[in-house]
């Protein structure tokens, strides 16, 4: 049941230059197992064009407190790889939004890399982001991802050299994930991001030429997104979304609060 046209490629081909692609990161199984599918559909309705669905891991060493928390809650909720595939399958009954599974290699390896890629492809997953697989270690997964129509997205960071950016661009599929600041994931104060980001962005523009460029890490508002993504194809928000869920769940109407926040990220400053 492998798709003929990759949804990520289509998204960037058809994108209107006047607006930025908004990708949202959501931890599967957070805040509870039942809400994930509804959240994805609601995020799409409110402006998300790409979903990065987090596969929780007990030891997320590149993540800050927010995603550590959501991962722990999801694991306590009993999240499994099979449940994640089922969630994607449910979304696919109602939506064609591109879905990328994002998470550390250990749970994938434990599941079996070949089996994981096959079942992810069958469920309707479009791509993978595995932050602890740098290009040097990619041989264990590349062929299986390719065979199942999964775009393997790589990251570049502010300390990635020009030459290495070009190597990563050559190997990345779907887009290149540009990490705007060194450090772990998490929402940051605007000026902290702004200070170092300009030089990085100009190097990214120069060296990432074959793939669309998505920028992430530290974005928490419409203004942040517009400023940081000005020269990019789009932006990624993760921790700020999880923080918003955490703030409102499980009060009545919590999803509406979350969707309102997402809407504001994409469309206005309020």
């Amino acid at each position, binding site marked *: 049941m492998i798709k003929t046209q990759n949804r990520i490629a289509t998204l960037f081909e058809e994108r209107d230059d006047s607006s930025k692609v908004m990708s949202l990161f959501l931890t599967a199984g957070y805040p509870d197992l039942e809400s994930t599918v509804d959240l994805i559909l609601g995020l799409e309705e409110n402006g998300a064009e790409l979903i990065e669905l987090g596969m929780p891991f007990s030891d997320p060493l590149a993540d800050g407190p927010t995603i550590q928390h959501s991962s722990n809650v999801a694991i306590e909720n009993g999240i499994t790889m099979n449940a994640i595939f089922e969630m994607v399958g449910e979304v696919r009954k109602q939506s064609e939004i591109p879905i990328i599974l994002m998470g550390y290699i250990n749970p994938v390896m434990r599941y079996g890399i070949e089996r994981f890629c096959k079942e992810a492809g069958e469920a309707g997953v479009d791509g993978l982001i595995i*932050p602890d697989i*740098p290009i040097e270690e990619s041989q264990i997964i590349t062929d299986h991802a390719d065979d199942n129509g999964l775009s393997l997205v790589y990251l570049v960071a502010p300390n990635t050299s020009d030459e290495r950016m070009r190597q990563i661009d050559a190997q990345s599929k779907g887009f290149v994930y540009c990490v705007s600041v*060194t450090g772990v994931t998490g929402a940051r104060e605007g000026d902290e991001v702004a200070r170092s980001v300009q030089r990085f962005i100009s190097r990214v523009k120069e060296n990432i030429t074959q793939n669309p460029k998505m920028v992430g890490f530290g974005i928490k508002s419409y203004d942040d997104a517009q400023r940081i993504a000005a020269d990019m194809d789009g932006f990624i928000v993760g921790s700020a979304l999880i923080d918003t869920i955490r703030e409102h769940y499980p009060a009545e109407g919590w999803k509406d609060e979350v969707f309102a926040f997402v809407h504001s990220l994409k469309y206005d400053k309020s």
Partner: protein
Amino acid sequence: MNYDLPTKSGYFGRFGGKFVPEILMPVLEELEEAYDEAWQDESFRDEYLDLLHNYVGRPTKLTFANRLTEHYGRAKIYLKREDLCHTGAHKINNAIGQILLARRMGKDRIIAETGAGQHGVATATACAKFGVECIVYMGAEDMERQKLNVERMRLLGAEVRSVESGSQTLKDATNEAIRDWVTNVEDTFYIIGSVVGPHPYPKMVRNFHRIIGDETKNQLTEAEGRNPDYLLACVGGGSNAMGIFYPFVDDESVKMYGLEAAGLGADTDQTAATLTIGEPGVLHGSLSYLLHDKEGQIQLAHSISAGLDYPGIGPEHAHLKDSGRVTYVGITDKQAMEGVKLLSELEGIIPALETAHAVNYLDELMPKTSKDEVVVLNCSGRGDKDMGTISKNL
């Protein structure tokens, strides 16, 4: 030497590698270059050896354990006395080596993780000696269990940061140290305390400890005119074991045993017997055996010895297990306590609880040996730090 691992990309057989976020790749490359260059540089080696000699107290003695030998009535038993090192364990060899490298690289902020506190104390000591800022990450639960070592680190001028995430033990302290590292890559050097982590750490830490095996080889040649028949060492992450094993890997007549912590038993869920019951996986940057559940979530390890209480193992040990070169056996908490008593009563040496795991294996090994053979046991640390636990369990 025929044994020439790791490969250039950091693999020991199918284990090892660099499974880290992109931010750390340039840092590891820089570290690898700096280490390889330093290790070839005579002036670096001279400074390292001078400190080991005049500050750490090397070479440590190789003591003939006459009463222990009589007790079993078989092979001669020698003890490699790493317990006599400054700070009380082998850990300081590596801390000194890495801090010299950090200085050479112009990094003036040192971070480290610690479980029982021994590596933290060794790092804090080295930082005090060089007047360098030192931050040690330690699980909140471990800080409670190892109060004395926390006080030692603070007295030495280190900042001990309590880690409240996850299980609040060594693996979480390591996560937090890595998070600090990715945030402060420019000026920070991460001194990893065992032969774990991404390449080049397993190789580098092993090489900073190989002096244990090199000295053993020379000292035993002097005492007995030969190589040992058996080497015994405890294994948590595996640094003292790699240190004594490595110079003997090509000497096929030397049988090597790594004793890991089985906790309440390798068939219970209260264990740290990674090589006995673990499955391959990636934790803290390298591929090795791990304790994890069927979803790949890391399981909590258990051992009476905080230094062995880790759900992973150095990738070189994983390779040496698969290749059959080293035999790994689990020793329970109870057996380790017997090891503490045995060595204390017969040799006047109170071993660290970690070391006691290796001591207890003599019960199993010695009846199979003969009088013309020689056993060397790496006495990796002294037991002063464990007196609280020991007196509770005697």
